[in-house]
């Protein structure tokens, strides 16, 4: 098989597997994929109901502030938690397929990215509702999405390998995610936190992505050089680490499965 026809075949496999993920996800619901749009809206409504009052003075347009963080966070958790079990879920298939098994992990992360696209429909509607003026810095958002995707993908590789050997990773990761969420300043203004935790938040890649997107959409400012560096380093660093570990463990994964 030539390289290009092989790539085409891999793309076909990814499309088929992604279609399956979506069909499965909404298999018993009437609204189906509409839920991907509704979910962020409902969550925004709930959080805004409670916290808009609380943070009235420090955050303008609280619902947008929250929603920006929420859709990125959802994409990240959606990608990593589903990709973590990708190898184990498909263990029957791993032995007979001819394409690299990375594709199973990649598909789960890609599904989360498609889901983000649906959430963006809700996001754009809300930007209109809250009369956020269009800014040219908004054109930056695809770069943020891409960085977030690469970071999530790298971590997904690490988690999926770890999960093959230790089932506990799943439970441990749930706890880690809770901590991680509170350190990402999704629903509160970061200015209210000082000291060590503040430093943790500001090195947290998720916060960096959220922060840069908020700046681009709500304030119309570009990331600083330091923020650019952070975004790219986290994305490519995590991807490199994940890919490397995955390559190295390939044979042990096959033995274990």
């Amino acid at each position, binding site marked *: 098989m030539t390289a290009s026809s092989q790539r085409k075949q891999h793309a076909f496999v990814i499309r088929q597997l992604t279609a399956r993920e979506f069909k499965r996800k909404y298999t018993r619901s009437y609204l189906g994929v509409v839920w991907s749009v509704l979910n962020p809206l409902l969550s925004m409504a709930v959080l805004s109901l409670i916290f808009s009052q609380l943070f009235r003075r420090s955050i303008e347009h609280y619902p947008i502030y929250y929603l920006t963080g929420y859709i990125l966070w959802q994409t990240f958790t959606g990608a990593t938690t589903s990709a973590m079990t990708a190898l184990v879920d498909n263990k029957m298939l791993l032995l*007979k397929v001819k394409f690299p098994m990375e594709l199973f992990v990649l598909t789960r992360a890609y599904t989360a990215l498609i889901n983000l696209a649906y959430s963006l429909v809700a996001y754009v509607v809300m930007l209109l509702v809250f009369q956020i003026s269009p800014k040219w810095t908004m054109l930056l958002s695809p770069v943020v999405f891409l960085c977030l995707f690469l970071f999530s993908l790298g971590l997904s590789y690490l988690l999926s390998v770890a999960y093959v050997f230790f089932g506990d990773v799943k439970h441990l990761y749930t706890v880690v995610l809770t901590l991680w969420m509170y350190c990402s300043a999704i629903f509160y203004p970061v200015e209210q936190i000082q000291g060590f935790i503040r430093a943790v938040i500001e090195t947290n890649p998720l916060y960096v992505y959220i922060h840069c997107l908020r700046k681009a959409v709500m304030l119309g400012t570009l990331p600083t050089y330091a923020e650019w560096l952070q975004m790219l380093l986290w994305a490519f660093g995590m991807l490199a680490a994940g890919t490397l570990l995955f390559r190295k463990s390939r044979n042990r994964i096959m033995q274990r499965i």
Partner: protein
Amino acid sequence: MGIWDTRSRAGRQTPEPDTEIEVRNVTMEFRRAKDEATSIKELMVRILRRQHAYETFKALDDVSLSIKKGEVVGIVGTNGSGKSTLLKIISGALIPTRGQVLVDRSKVQLLTLGTGFDLELTGRENVYLNGAIIGYSKAFIDRKYSQIVRFAELEGFMEEKVRNYSSGMVSRLGFAIATIRDTPEILILDEVLSVGDLFFRKKSEARIKEMIHGGSTVLLVSHSTSVIRSNCSKAVWIEKGRLLTAGDPKDVCDAYEKKRKV
């Protein structure tokens, strides 16, 4: 990519021109901790107490085997004897601990049934999903779709979820998808015979025979010695990871059956 290493080697040192698969002194060891740690907590406890004893388990022990172009080789052996490990090594899914396999992996096609169906999807969706996974292109499936449905005798059921299929219908569909391709040069069959009801079984056996006798090199694992007797030109008996005998199917099957009765 690691698993393709052997292919480049194959180019340099293929011993005889008509040898298709050359298995050289292959040993496969699985290192498993004595009742392996399945949780991080357990692992920590073990490491702290230095109870990190491994035992190696030999799934295959110094197996050598050479298969010529066009041979139909049957592999017999009791469950857990290492038959499917050998198939996985030949197809490239596993890399042996020692030894090597010389074979052109791009020619190898492993055929197994009953895996990869998603019960929540319809029959049609599963044809495309399953086809994609086993390496068919979209154009190929588009072209062969109606032929697959006809062979599986599922006209009128393709828009229904596979969840609502009977087990016979599922295996018919699986068989139809897996065997619609043009016969590959090296075909590996892992327990694919005896599918579906009696009528379909005849049809599937006919298709398999067509593939087997279509000139490809075939490796076939089966519990049924009669299948091996009637189809193979050579048989191999593997027991506890060791290759016991290889040769005429009749002799090997006789010896195997005699041993099993004892």
